[in-house]
């Protein structure tokens, strides 16, 4: 069992590092937004969890998930929790202020001074959250196994270091979290929850979807290299219904890119199969006009891959 916590100073694009690390080490990525969703599902509402109980709620959730998956987690302060798990690693990205300002300028379309104000706000928020939930405003360097400079190292190189540390520690040789260790952790957490009147549902689970074909993997690599956040098949849209109004057919676009709010469908299959796909996309657009979707056909995709120097041959799905 491996639980890798990825943390970093605001503006270091921690989510991107975590995504790359999860992909490289074949871990399940648990982003802050996904973890908040899981907390809502498990405890009814995240707001029902007192700040002091949040570390216990996170431990309870991660213990359930680590029974079935190797995890890569991003959440403020989670690096203080993961040492409770038998095989864990904590990595932190840091960078000079001007570099982090540059990232915020680009990501939020800001000029330098507004970006500086945003950075100060993000830093204050992080300190406040840590203080409120974990009783400390800062986390000292000795709480990390690995600290990397995001300015001098490319994201790929930082992930190389995380990968090396994970192998050196033998993290990936461990099996999943043993049931008896999960039971110990859950017992401890339930004692804590009783103080706050919290009852976890005990049903936390991840829905995982492997890539359907090699082209999707190549496309995901391309997005990762260009630091574009993506989600794989996050949503299915009903496109046909029976007379009773029950959905009978769904369309699930391959990727969702949150920043441009764009769905992407890769159609690298043979032309004979494209017509059916086109019909579905047309139907999706007519039923959900607010949805922004782009279809990349085989030739488009090959051009993209060729132009951006990917070595892999694009194979028809």
């Amino acid at each position, binding site marked *: 069992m491996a639980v890798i916590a990825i943390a970093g100073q605001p503006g270091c694009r921690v989510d991107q590092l975590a995504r790359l690390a999860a992909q490289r080490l074949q871990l399940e990525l648990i982003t802050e937004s996904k973890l908040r969703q899981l907390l809502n599902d498990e405890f009814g509402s995240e707001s029902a969890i007192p700040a002091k109980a949040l570390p216990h709620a996170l431990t309870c959730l991660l213990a359930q998930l680590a029974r079935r998956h190797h995890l890569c987690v991003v959440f403020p302060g989670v690096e203080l929790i993961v040492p409770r798990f038998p095989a864990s690693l904590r990595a932190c990205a840091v960078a000079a202020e001007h570099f982090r300002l*540059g990232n915020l300028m680009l990501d939020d379309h800001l*000029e330098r001074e507004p970006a500086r104000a945003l950075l100060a706000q993000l830093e204050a928020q992080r300190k406040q959250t840590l203080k409120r939930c974990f009783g400390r405003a800062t986390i000292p360097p000795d709480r990390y196994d690995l600290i990397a400079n995001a300015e001098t190292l490319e994201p790929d190189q930082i992930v190389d270091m995380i990968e090396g540390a994970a192998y050196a520690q033998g993290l990936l040789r461990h099996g999943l979290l043993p049931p008896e260790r999960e039971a110990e952790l859950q017992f401890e957490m339930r004692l804590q929850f009783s103080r706050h009147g919290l009852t976890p549902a005990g049903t936390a689970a991840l829905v995982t979807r492997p890539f359907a074909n090699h082209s999707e993997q190549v496309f995901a690599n391309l997005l990762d290299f*260009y630091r574009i956040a993506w989600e794989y098949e996050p949503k299915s849209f009903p496109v046909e219904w029976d007379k009773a109004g029950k959905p009978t057919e769904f369309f699930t676009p391959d990727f969702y890119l949150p920043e441009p709010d764009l769905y992407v469908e890769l159609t690298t299959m043979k032309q004979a199969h494209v017509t059916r796909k086109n019909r579905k996309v047309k139907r999706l657009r007519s039923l959900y006009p607010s949805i922004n979707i782009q279809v990349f056909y085989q030739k488009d995709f090959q051009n993209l891959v060729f132009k*951006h*120097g990917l070595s892999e041959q694009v194979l028809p799905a």
Partner: protein
Amino acid sequence: MSGAASPPIERVLFTEEQVNARIREIAAAIDEHYRGRDLKMIGVLKGSVYFLTALTRALAIPVKIDFLAISSFASARNSRGLVRIAKDLDEPIEGEDVLLVEDIVDSGLTARYLLQTLAGRAPNSLGVCTMLDRTSRRLAPLPIEFRCFEIPDHFVVGCGLDYKQRYRNLPYIAVMKPGV
């Protein structure tokens, strides 16, 4: 002799007059936006050379220029593509208002890579000016402040845009014949 042959174009998308008129409009907008500021325009080699030259000639405000070139190559270690700067800027951009000048923005991936690189060098602001904006294949969100023309999903040449390094010097923008 192929060099003397007519370019294999289907139709002219924007005439020389239309291109020049639009460049003058964009130059006026840049003048307005950057008046009193320290503007540096960065061209991406090779495609942006013609556009950058025409644009800067139409500007009234003083401006500095510099150039970047990128190359892409495949990584043998993994399947991830790699893009690297083949020619870096000659001067630092710290504290300057930087406008990246492109001939065309398509998927936006290249421009985004360059902006990320430039963002870490402490400019005062960072924007994009492109002659052509082909949004139908956009993947990366970009702060495009100035664009001359938005174009449909066609392969175009001229005004710096090439097909196998040719036709950059056409004074108009044209759609290539299908199947070329």
